[in-house]
């Protein structure tokens, strides 16, 4: 067990936290936080695993840079949508009834 592997394992745990939060939290702001935690976890796994021999690897590092930019882009768009929803429905959560349409007895 070396430092990169510790971070890879931490990343795995963060991914799990993020996914759980993304699925279970109702508030959109928290979903967005959870998405970012999930993303950070993935990045740690990517770099941690690649550098498990202790040698820095610029390729996954460059990929993570790309990933961070994509994450901020998604975060901003998600926040913009969440705000629209807040302005229109007064709530920062997804309405339930649309999921309810997915039932035969409606």
């Amino acid at each position: 067990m070396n430092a990169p592997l510790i971070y890879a394992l931490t990343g795995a745990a963060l991914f799990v936290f993020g996914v759980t939060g993304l699925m279970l939290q109702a508030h959109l702001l928290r979903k967005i936080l959870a998405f970012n935690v999930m993303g950070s976890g993935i990045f740690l796994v990517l770099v941690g695993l690649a550098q498990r021999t202790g040698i820095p690897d610029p390729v996954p590092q460059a990929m993570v840079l790309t990933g961070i930019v994509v994450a901020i882009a998604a975060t901003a768009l998600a926040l913009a949508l969440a705000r629209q929803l807040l302005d229109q429905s007064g709530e920062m959560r997804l309405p339930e009834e649309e999921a309810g349409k997915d039932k035969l007895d409606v």
Partner: protein
Amino acid sequence: MKALLNIAVLSLTGALGLVLAWSILDLPASAVRLPEQVTAQLDMSGVAHPVTAVLLNFRGYDTLLEIAVLLLALLGMLALPRQASGSKPRPVPASPMLQTLARLLTPLMVLVAGYVLWAGAHRPGGAFQAGAVLAGAGVLLHLAGLLPAWATPGRALRAGLATGLLVFIAVAATLMTQGTLLQYPPGWAGALILVIEASLTLSLGLILAGLYLVLADSKVQA
């Protein structure tokens, strides 16, 4: 029902975590050694810093698409129907001290951005970090009440936002007359990467600041 769902999700993700951890600890040595290849080709790449070499040369095509993603996110935000605020964004009252600080810091930050950009060729840094610093300056100016939020960017601003991507595409496409997409001719790589990075820094700064400034605008109520 809700509790049941929670338990189901928790046990599923928990199991996923365990499998993930176990498989991470059970890995053989990798077959392909990219770091060695990067080092071997670094001289050809036009920059001395390996991460920059990957970002703008070896995997420059990823970066090209990534800039499009970033521009697209801003575009998606701008495409949302705006609340008919009509009125100019209200200047946020800020303390004079913050304003002074912002006035002092902004030129400094632009300078830092320039340095980070230039330094990226041989040490950590580059267009992303430089752009982020520029964007930070924009956010600071807005917080100090010196920069209004964006309702609808004008043509000049849109051109600025698109410059980075357009320059990148133009360079990539022009290079096709010699070889393939984004294939820098020997000797030209360093200069061309600097041109791309400079325009990227400008656009990234604008876009990243825009992500904040567009959102900030939707706060203003009629």
